[in-house]
């Protein structure tokens, strides 16, 4: 119950960022595309998936896509980065539906998680980027 209450507080809209640190040394995209192989993992057929896929394939040399409900870690072989997109949090009744954790604590490939559901995944992995 306490956890649920904290989620409600945390769901407050976080719409922008105003301070940033760190730097990146990535090289400029050659001939318009970045030389990385990216796997987008989301829900097939959703407008959201089309949005991300259309955008990412314009910018990366290879873009794959996979179904969040079916993917296994081995499916990400051959990709440099996995983009894990659960969409917005799903709430049924008074409970938040916990996202399926596909890539566990032993997974070693780079992963980018998105939004509140992504933060829950980080939380379940014991990462500081988790929700609470």
């Amino acid at each position, binding site marked *: 119950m306490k956890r649920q209450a904290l989620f409600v*507080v*945390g*769901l*407050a*809209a*976080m*719409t*922008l*960022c*105003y*301070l*940033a*640190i*760190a*730097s*990146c*040394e*990535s*090289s*400029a*995209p050659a001939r318009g595309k*970045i030389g*990385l192989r990216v796997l987008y993992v989301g829900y097939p057929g959703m*407008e*959201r998936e089309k*949005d*991300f896929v*259309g*955008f*990412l394939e314009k*910018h990366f040399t290879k873009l794959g896509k996979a179904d969040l409900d079916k993917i296994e870690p081995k499916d990400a072989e051959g990709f*440099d*980065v996995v*983009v894990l997109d659960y*969409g*917005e*949090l799903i709430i049924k009744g008074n409970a938040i539906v916990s996202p399926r954790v596909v890539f*566990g*604590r*032993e*997974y*070693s490939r*780079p*992963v*980018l*998680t*998105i*939004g*509140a559901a*992504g*933060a829950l995944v*980080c939380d379940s*992995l*014991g*990462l*500081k*980027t*988790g*929700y*609470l």
Partner: protein
Amino acid sequence: MFEKPYKVEPVYEWWETPLNYRSYPGGKELPDELKVWRVQKTTEKPGETTRPYGAVSRDWKSDKKLDAEALAVGYNNGKMSGAVAVGRQRNFLQWGFSAPPSNMTDAGRKFFLNCICYIARFEGRVPGT
């Protein structure tokens, strides 16, 4: 992170300091307004609960020993000033914004692309260490 491969050019605004910030340590010393920039487009007033949502984790500092970096903090009306919107630990980068690219700002889209490039460097680190 804000220069390569895409130069991120935020459009800055001044937003009222959220009341919730005041109740945390150091909150009373914050100015009345904060300089912010939008990563995703919203249609509602600053400071209100808006869609698309986002998520922040509580305020934490970058820590080499933990292989963790706070990359951007997020304006929020639920937690403290300094709550982390974009952060990395080991091979996971958490992007706290939920909008798809078509609903990001131009600066937000570039920042998102740069984040993908950035996390690509961390092959081989695992969460469970």
